Structure formats: C-alpha cells, structure tokens
C-alpha cells in the first residue's frame, strides 16, 4: 500500500510516498529527512523530546502518524533560526543555561515557542512551569528553562505582558 501525502516542512513544501502507514511524524523527520534535531526520547508521549509545531501547535510527533497529517505545516528546531541569527527562545536558553546535556533542548524550545503562541502563561512562572510540564529534563535544568521561557515571552510579546502586568 502506497500512501501519498504532502507536508510543508520548515517552510518547504514536500511530497512523500509512504510505503507503510506506521511511520510517525517523528520517524519521517529523523529517518527519511535526516532532520535529527527532533529527538526520540521515550517514543510514547511521556517525555516531550519529540515536540514539533504542527499548524502552529505543539504536539508529540512520536504519537502522530505522518499519513494522518496530509497537508499539515510542520515546524521543527531546524526551521526556527534565520541563518546564524538564533530564534529569541534559542538565545534565551543559552543566556539562562536552560540545558546541560542538551538532549531534551529541541523539544523544550519548540514547546516554549508553542507555549508563548498559546498566550496562556504570560509572565507567571507558575503557569510557565505548568505549561512546560510535558517536557522532561533529566539533567534538571528546570530553573534555567523557566527563566529562559519568561525572558523569551517578554521579548516576543511585550505588548501582551504589559497588559497582563
């Protein structure tokens, strides 16, 4: 059974013919496109390392069948910087030591971008921590992660945070 799908990945429209419907979005990115920035941690939706944005929303790509997402717009960690210019969330993670080993970091950053877009957490660290609870960090860099997300939130949505404050 061959299944044709079309995805936009980091802004580039791509056509795929899948020979097997079992391919997840995560495996499509890593194994067929060599976009290995998105990590496979638990592969069961428990750790968040595989977080990507699908049509602007953060999801676990390990629990998403590629074939089910025909037409979707996918944004991965490889697609957020402009050349050498880091995305503000990437820069904030570096500035605040929001990682140690770095394995969970692409998922953390994509999740943070999703969180900021959702606009529910504002500048409340408790809401940021709760909103980021789907991303585990075995090194325990949570304090830096929270600071990084708060700083990025401020730099990306100054008007919104002023209103909330």
């Amino acid at each position, binding site marked *: *059974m061959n*299944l044709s799908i079309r995805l936009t990945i980091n802004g580039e429209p791509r056509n795929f013919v899948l020979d*097997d*419907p*079992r391919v*997840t979005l995560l495996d499509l990115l890593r194994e067929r496109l060599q976009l290995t920035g998105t990590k496979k941690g638990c*592969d*069961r*939706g428990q750790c*968040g390392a595989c*977080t990507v944005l699908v049509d602007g*929303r*953060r*999801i*676990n790509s390990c*629990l*998403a*069948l590629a*074939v*089910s997402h025909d037409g979707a717009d996918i944004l991965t960690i490889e697609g957020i910087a402009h050349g050498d210019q880091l995305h503000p969330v990437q820069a904030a993670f570096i500035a605040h030591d929001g990682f140690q080993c770095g394995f969970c970091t692409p998922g953390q950053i994509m*999740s943070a971008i*999703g*969180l900021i877009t*959702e606009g*529910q957490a504002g500048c*409340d*660290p*408790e*809401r940021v*921590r*709760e*909103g*980021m*609870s*789907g*991303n585990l960090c075995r090194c325990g860099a949570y304090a830096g992660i929270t600071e990084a997300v708060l700083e990025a939130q401020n730099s990306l949505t100054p008007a919104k945070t002023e209103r909330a404050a």
Partner: protein
Amino acid sequence: MNRFDYVKPASVAEAIAAAAEPGAAYLASGTNLLDLMKGGIVRPSRLVDVSRLPGLDRIERLPSGDLRIGALVRNADLAHDVDFAKTYPAIAEALLSGASAQLRNAATVGGNLLQRTRCNYFYDTASACNKRAPGTGCDARGGDNRLHAVLGWSEGCIATHPSDFCVPLVAFDAVAEIEGKNGRREIAVEDLHRLPGATPELDSALEAGELIVAVRLPAAARAFSSHARYLKVRERTSYAFALVSAAAGLVIDGGRIKEARLALGGVAARPWRADAAEAMLAGARAEPAAFQRAAEAALTEARPSGDNGFKIELARRIVVRALTLAAAGTPARVPALPASPFASVSGEVLHA
C-alpha cells in the same frame, strides 16, 4: 507495532462502513491508541482515520441551551473556549489538569472518553490481564496495586478509568451522541463506561463499530457555574494521572445548598457519580459538617482491592476539599496549577 490497513473515510457514513470489518479501530489523534499499538497491547488490523471528518470539530450552543461539543474538538481548544470555560468551569479545569500541553493540543473529546486504563499490568504484555487477554487472570491482584480501584471492582479486574474530563462530564449529566450501523443513539456519559464484573475486556457500552460524534452538556448544568471545581491528587505536581479526583458543583441560595453534583475519579473503572451524597447535600447548609457527611456517603461502598485502602480516606478528604472550594466560589480564571488541592482557596496566585 503490528501492520494494519489504513483507511481515510470522507464522511461519518463511510467511516462506519469501513469500521464494520472485524479488527478495525477508529483513529482520531492517536495519543492513546498509537501508544497502545507501540506496546503491542492492542493490534488492530485496520485503522479508520476519523481525524479529518468534516463537521465534528465544532462547539455549538443549541436552541435548547444545551452545548454540543463535536467529538473531534481538541482538549485544549475546548478548555480555552471562553464561553465553555465560563459556563462549565469545572470541566475546563479537569481538562487542563490532564496530560501535557502537547497531548491536550492533539487529544480529542471522543478519544478522551474512550481512552484505556493505565493499569501497569494491562500495559505489560508479559502480565496476566483479563482486560487485555480475557481469561488469563489479573496480576494486579496481589501485585503493585496501590493506585487501583476501591469502588465497583471485581475479582477479575481492579483497573481504574484514567480520564479527568469524564469525571465532571458525569457529574453534570453529559450525554454522548453515537453513530453506528443501526443509526444514531444517545447514551449518558455515566453509562458509557462499564464496571468490570465478569467481562473486564468490555470497557464501554459501545457496540462494535460505533462512533462517538459529539458530547452534549445540558443547559441545566449551567446553574452550577459559580460554584464548581475539579480537584485531583497526583503523585507529582503536574502531568500525572489522578490518584483520586473529585468534581463538585453546588447551587447555593442564602447559605443553603439547593442542588449538588459530585463525582469521583481514579477510584473505579468508570467515573463514580455520588448520588447519595448529592441527595444528602440538597437542602443542607453549605458548611463543613455537611461536606463531611457527603464524603462518608460517597465512599460507603468502598473497599480496598489491595494495598490501596489509603485511597478511601484520601477520596473522602478530596470530596470535602472539593465541596469546600466549590462553595467558596469558582475562581475567575483556572488556577495556575489546575485542580491542585494544594492551591489557595482563591486559586489565583500560587507563587506569591
């Protein structure tokens, strides 16, 4: 994961026809189904992908005042729908206390209702499990069972239903709209999930091939909007299933309870509606003594299924706390830590 045929129907009618084949399963977002398939716990021979079926992703107010929520509405979209969150705040709070933001962005209303138990022995294919493999026994009995059921369980199965969303749905008399090969029917969400008895392999009252297309909340449930809470004790602060949870709604007039709604989660194979406690609360003053009596009534039939006797007392206390917080009033916004029993009463600021 086993091999399967993949079918993407264009309409509900096509989906039902495609799912008539034995071994077929509906795929919505797949946050539970794909996890189960990766573990070899379920092995459908055909997936009928309903995730893009038209018309099932709407939240609409009906002329009757009821709210109709399409089965494909995502958990996050429902919880953040301003009208919904204002009208049914305990349900929004329950949704936001479940899973993670990523999962809530994907998971659907229908899928939440039909998610399977998280019993470790159900998930471990090397263990005996009557729900997964009927007749093999239950390794949870005599196993690590501190999280298991204290109400409605049987010798054959002590698993619990893991949903948060379903607990207030049951409390507020939600109805599931179902399509199948024999047409449309409705069933109270309270009657959707089955107690295990001698057939723990049957999770729900759905017939093979039936599809939940919507959940309807009655207009009458809006009366509870200013006194409604969902509380949930977890073993970590966030992103964990309930040890015990409770949804409570009150209508209070002059310090007296006119009407009460109460359901428990994490205690049985289905959300547990506490009818006797509700009846006891009606007409009582909204004060601790009444909440304590209600808690006793709600857990009268409870008994441990293993090392989980503590859940009975925990459930009583969560009932009292949920009723106390409901009586204090629904917070203006879902608290930063949704459903946390450790939040302040106002639930507004936890880090101050």
